[in-house]
């Protein structure tokens, strides 16, 4: 589904990703972990097509298409979703109206008629239940005055509405207490299927207790330096990122 080949990228002249290789197949859940500044959020931003980031080298294939050639809205329409670390506030625009516009623009891209109001409301009701969201929250201006937990639940709600093929969760656990993490993770788990894939970007292992990954990758200095099964997350939690740093240093010393 997603094939990242030797991806180098940076921002404002500063290089952050130094050759990422990663393949994600349908039905899989991958976790990317790493210390602060390792390039986790940059990877998420580059995949979603954030304008400020510059791709310097390498390629990304998504569902057979050259992802890097597509505009952010086309990437979204093709089924790529990013749950933001810091969801943006839009005063005066309700989540409902926002989602209606998004759903219908994606349908238009696919050559479908806009969804009628009844079908849309029905779908909203279904998805609201997934993330324990109240109707009143969806009528409020998008993310304005939302608590950290509400913002993240709203992100997962939007993911449920747009039914992406690949969802990237960028530090979705940051700033959440354990109850909120559980609600958000439950929502995500209900959306797992054999047809879609999830890429969880996180600093801590605790989210992975709830969203159990098939693969864990450790990002360090803009490269994936270690990959393994879900147990790798526990090892990281236990030994800290320093052990990875040391391993990398040793490796560099032996292969100069």
């Amino acid at each position, binding site marked *: 589904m997603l094939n990242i080949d030797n991806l180098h990228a940076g921002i404002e002249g500063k290089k952050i990703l130094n050759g990422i290789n990663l393949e994600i197949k349908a039905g899989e859940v991958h976790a990317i972990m790493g210390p602060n500044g390792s390039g986790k959020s940059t990877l998420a931003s580059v995949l*979603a*097509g*954030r*304008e*400020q980031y510059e791709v310097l080298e390498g390629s990304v294939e998504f569902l057979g298409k050259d992802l890097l050639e597509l*505009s*952010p*809205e086309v*990437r*979204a*329409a093709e089924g790529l*979703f*990013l749950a*933001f670390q810091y*969801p*943006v*506030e*839009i*005063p*005066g*625009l309700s989540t409902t*109206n*926002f*989602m209606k*516009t*998004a759903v219908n*623009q*994606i349908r238009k*891209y696919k050559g479908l008629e806009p969804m009628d109001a009844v079908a849309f409301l029905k779908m909203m009701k279904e998805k609201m239940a997934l993330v324990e969201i109240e109707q009143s929250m969806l009528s409020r*201006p*998008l993310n304005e005055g939302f608590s950290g937990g509400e913002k993240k639940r709203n992100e997962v709600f*939007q993911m449920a509405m*747009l039914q992406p093929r690949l969802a990237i969760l960028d530090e979705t656990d940051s700033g959440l207490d354990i109850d909120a993490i559980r609600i958000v993770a439950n929502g995500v788990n209900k959306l797992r299927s054999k047809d879609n894939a999830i890429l969880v970007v996180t600093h801590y292992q605790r989210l992975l207790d709830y969203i159990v990954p098939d693969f864990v990758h450790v990002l360090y200095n803009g490269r994936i330096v270690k990959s393994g099964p879900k147990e790798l997350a526990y090892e990281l939690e236990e030994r800290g990122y320093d052990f990875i740093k040391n391993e990398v240093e040793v490796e560099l010393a032996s292969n100069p």
Partner: protein
Amino acid sequence: MNEEVSLIEQEVLKDYKYGFITDIEADEAPKGLSEDTVRFISAKKNEPEWMLEWRLKAYRQWLKMKEPSWANIKYPEIDYQDIIYYSAPKQKIAPDSLDEIDPELRRTFEKLGISLNEQKRLTGVAVDAVIDSVSIGTTFKKQLGELGIIFCSMSEAVQEHPDLIKKYLSTVVPVTDNFFAALNSAVFSDGSFCYIPKGVHCPMELSTYFRINAGNTGQFERTLIVAEAGSYVSYLEGCTAPMRDENQLHAAVVELIAMDNAEIKYSTVQNWYPGDKDGRGGIYNFVTKRGICSGVNSKISWTQVETGSSITWKYPSVILKGDNSVGEFYSVAVTNHHQQADTGTKMLHIGKNTRSRIVSKGISAGVSNNSYRGLVNVSKRADNARNFSQCDSLLLGDKCGAHTFPYIEVKNNTAVVEHEATTSKIGEDQIFYCNQRGIDTETAVALIINGFAKEVMNQLPMEFAVEAQKLLAISLEGSVG
């Protein structure tokens, strides 16, 4: 940051869709302004002597007045001798029935989305159609007449209802109120008159559609709305003009009078030609709008969506004379390219327990300049007056300007006056967030703008809210890449 600016500067202005010219023979006054011009206009309208005297008085006053220069706008000196003050399409003025309207004119209004055919018209809206200096017809007059409601052109009102005109004209905006009001009084050619009798709730929206067509011509219309005790009326005006390279002057006066327990809701969707992207052409819009809550518990509410004109100078105001009266001002002013707007309101609290609410939303793009100017005045005897003002500015790009000039004068210590102001920018973050959900940039900007303006848009009558929303998006099209 730089990236954001370059993004915002991309794309070009979408064509002003109302910019066409109707080719129709016109009956015009010679260029320039003198007593003769005033007499010419008065004669054209077959006016009684008192009306001519009133005009001449205004003209003589105007000669002694100076064009105001305090507003935050810049424009080359206006040559008042280079303007045509009267231009009327050659047809039978005030046709006896709507069927007699020149088909070319009828088509003009249809093209603007204004049908003068009562059968085809959206139910619930009566229209007075004004082109250049004259009204060409008013719909639903008969139905309204059955309720005692008078809704007609100003010219007709002078002929048919001279007592009402004599009684109320220039009682809210005196002839000498300001330079442009005096000019208007001297040369005004048409406009609408509404009279809602006691206790009548006007069953449909009344609206006037103003169209400037002729070149080199100024439009000077005058609107007067009187709501008798316990009555209600909702009135809407819309305006457009052809695209021309020269600037054209529009100087209107609107007066509203609300008696005891009466309510007037006045909405404007102003879409005069704004000039091209280099600032060539466009309407100079110098307008004096004022209402008086003359009776107890009366209410006047102004809602304006200002997207057009190269220069906008207008301050719809309310004199809160009656005890417990309420004044409201809801405004969205959009400026793009080289447009300049200096707009706001005055709330003059005179009666006891009077309340006013001001919500102003300024949106600036391009190299435009957008100023809010407002005055809240609480007089000595206005016990327990309340005012709440909120002035928000939204900037698109970093070459435009947003300014706020709030003036507060309070002479009674029981008054509570609150003022809140914010300035924000459409962030690339907001646009990217929308993009990431599959929403293209143009739609994203429209969503953000409409969200910003929502509180004001909600005040518009349903029939027009959707149109106004589209208009906002179109006015700003191309201002964010």
